[in-house]
């Protein structure tokens, strides 16, 4: 599992995963079914972060999948990451998003933009799971329109001083390292820079915790930055390049959420399938409603189609080919599918779907159309590519 899959041997030949990836997939599924699935409902009910499970995931290498081998990572690449995230999210989307953010938003940015010293400092903590990563871009006034952010970073000689709250920070209350985007100039885009902020830096605080429809075991919090004074070498990339740093996460983040959505859709499909399998007559013939069977068939087809879309974008990214619009296609279709599938599960399971795994899937699924670029943003990306504008 420590060999680098990306860009060397084919990962996907004639619609079959390579043997290595097939084995990796089985391992992820086993972990998800034994360590996540049995507890996910309780974590959700108690709004409890699955810390121990995340540590177990770290020991299996799931927190180092996008990190280069020289910094302790496995560098398995994007396809492997998508495979892993589908499995984890089918069992527990809260754990899934924690790991996705850690890998695709935090570790991959450090790998791509960090200095050698920054990498030597932070990767050991990140790959081991000692520290989790968080990504602090959004603010109260800037969601889809990320460049509208107002959090300030003031150059104070030997230090940067960061000031202004960040909103909707996934894993914010549990993270050790924060990638913070702040304004170092007035230009809407070129006035943004990226910084590495530690949980222990004076002035860093945890603000309001969001009360959410779902994903309640994944804390989403406000990160308060009140005159946080950090050394100059905590700048990630160059001054004014923060927006480029942020853009660099887009494809990976979208593939992560596409895979999360795929996991949720598959879990909903499996719930429906298992429910309908119990409906048989004395001769073993299915007595399931045709309408429910048709819905199941539609979902099965869509899940396969969405998985192929997702894996295609991941393989392109592994091959260092442009994949922006294709990652958006995956995110767009998977997130819509997750919601449809989860709603269908509630409908088909009926009153027993109102209090059980189906309704949790429905609540968890809803965020996949919102974060990492809302649905209309994905459409914008795709339309631009198609229209060549």
């Amino acid at each position, binding site marked *: 599992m420590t060999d680098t899959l990306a860009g060397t041997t084919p990962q996907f030949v004639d619609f079959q995963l390579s043997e290595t990836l097939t084995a990796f997939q089985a391992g992820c599924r086993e972990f998800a079914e034994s360590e996540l699935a049995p507890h996910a409902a309780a974590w959700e*009910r108690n709004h409890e972060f699955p810390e121990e499970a995340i540590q177990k995931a770290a020991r299996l290498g799931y927190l180092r999948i996008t990190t280069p081998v020289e910094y302790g990572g496995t560098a398995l690449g994007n396809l492997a990451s998508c495979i892993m995230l589908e499995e984890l999210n089918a069992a527990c989307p809260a754990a899934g998003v924690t790991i996705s953010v850690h890998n695709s938003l935090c570790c991959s940015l450090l790998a791509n933009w960090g200095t050698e010293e920054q990498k030597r400092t932070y990767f050991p903590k990140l790959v081991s799971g000692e520290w989790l990563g968080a990504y602090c871009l*959004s603010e109260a*006034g800037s*969601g*889809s*329109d990320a460049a*509208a952010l107002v959090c300030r970073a003031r150059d104070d000689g030997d230090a940067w001083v960061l000031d202004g709250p960040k*909103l*909707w920070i996934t894993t914010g209350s549990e993270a050790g390292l924060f990638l913070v985007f702040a304004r170092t100039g007035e230009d809407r885009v070129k006035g943004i820079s990226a910084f590495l902020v530690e949980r222990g830096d004076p002035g860093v605080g945890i603000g309001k915790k*969001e*009360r*959410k*429809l*779902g994903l309640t075991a994944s804390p989403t919090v406000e990160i308060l930055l009140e005159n946080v004074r950090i050394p100059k070498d905590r700048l990630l990339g160059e001054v004014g390049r923060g927006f480029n740093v942020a853009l660099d996460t887009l494809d990976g983040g979208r593939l992560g959420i596409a895979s999360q959505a795929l996991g949720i859709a598959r879990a909903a499909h499996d719930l429906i399938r298992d429910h309908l399998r119990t409906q048989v007559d004395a001769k073993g013939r299915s007595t399931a*409603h045709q*309408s*429910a069977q048709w819905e199941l068939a539609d979902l099965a087809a869509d899940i396969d189609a969405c998985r192929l879309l997702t894996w295609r974008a991941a393989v392109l990214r592994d091959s260092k080919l442009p994949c922006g619009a294709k990652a958006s296609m995956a995110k767009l279709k998977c997130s819509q599918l997750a*919601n449809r599938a989860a*709603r269908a599960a*509630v*409908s*088909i399971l*009926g*009153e*027993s*779907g*109102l*209090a059980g795994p189906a*309704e949790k899937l*429905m*609540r968890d699924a*809803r*965020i996949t*159309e*919102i*974060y990492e670029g*809302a*649905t*209309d943003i994905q*459409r914008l990306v795709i339309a631009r590519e198609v229209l060549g504008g």
Partner: protein
Amino acid sequence: MHNLTLGDELSMVQDTVRKLVQDVIEPAALEHDEHRRFHAGAFEALAETGLFGAAVAEDDGGAGLGLLSLVVACEELGRACGSSGRLFATQAGTAALSLAGLASAAEVLESVLTGEKLCAFVGPEHGVCAEVDGSGAKLSGFARYVTGAAEAGVVVVAASLGDGPVLCVVEPAAAEIAPQDQGLGFRASGPASVTLDGAAAQILASGDEAHAAIARAALATDVGAAALAAGSAFASVDLGRRHAGERIAFGKPLARQQAVGHKLVEGMRRAEAARQLVYQAARVADGGGDAARLAALARLTAVDAAVHAADESIQVHGGFGYTVEYHVERHYRDAKTLEVLDGGACAARDVLASSLGSGA
């Protein structure tokens, strides 16, 4: 615009409910829902208005305002608080109208109309079986997610006795009632499972009389649910419109993005269609016609509208929509719950399909 067709009495019903919503129900809706706490204050306040009898004939102790009054009240409640609305629809609609006119139910009916007792209703879709037991009956069966059952003072059950229907009343103590506090929606309505294991019951009606009573209940249930859902759909559109008007992204209000405007228009279109259907169903029923088909169509339309409008409103809200403070996530959960309750949309379509040809 709609008030053009409401008379004075219905306008009074609307005003009364609006005031109650504003003063008592809406301010507490989020909190009760979030903590899955029964919204007793709403029920009591509704009882005080006397509206539990609005749709019941004057001869039976009601105000005689017909199903239209149920529609008017439920639409208002549905805008603000699904849980209170569902409780109201069960009490003033399903329960009151099934009981009204049954000689042996006069006492129960009075306790329902005054709100002295909260009435839970176990519909025929749960398949409860009755056996004659002396002058009463014993009931056996199981029903999930029964509105108000956790707080019920009385439980009315539509059961079957041999080949025929019976309408029975059970004391809550005779049933095993287990609150379901981990459910999707209507979290402040006291949902509970009801297990009847030979529970002693009084038979209120049997044969044709029970058949008619259960049909009245079904009609009122569908009309109430449709009106609640229509109200919810309008509320989701309104919340989305307000947010889109205020929220600036890419230098202009969200509302000026064509895609956002079209989402809201589509929500409004569906909500309006649902409203017209449920009003027509109520008008036909109040005029003495058979409105079962129209009510079922209204419910399907309204519930779809409500789920869709909430879903799109969440999307318009972006991340805010995923948090409880913006209310749309609650509409999303309540609307979907309404799709599943009372037998569910699939069974409703089956019934409509089997009667295709009687309508249009």
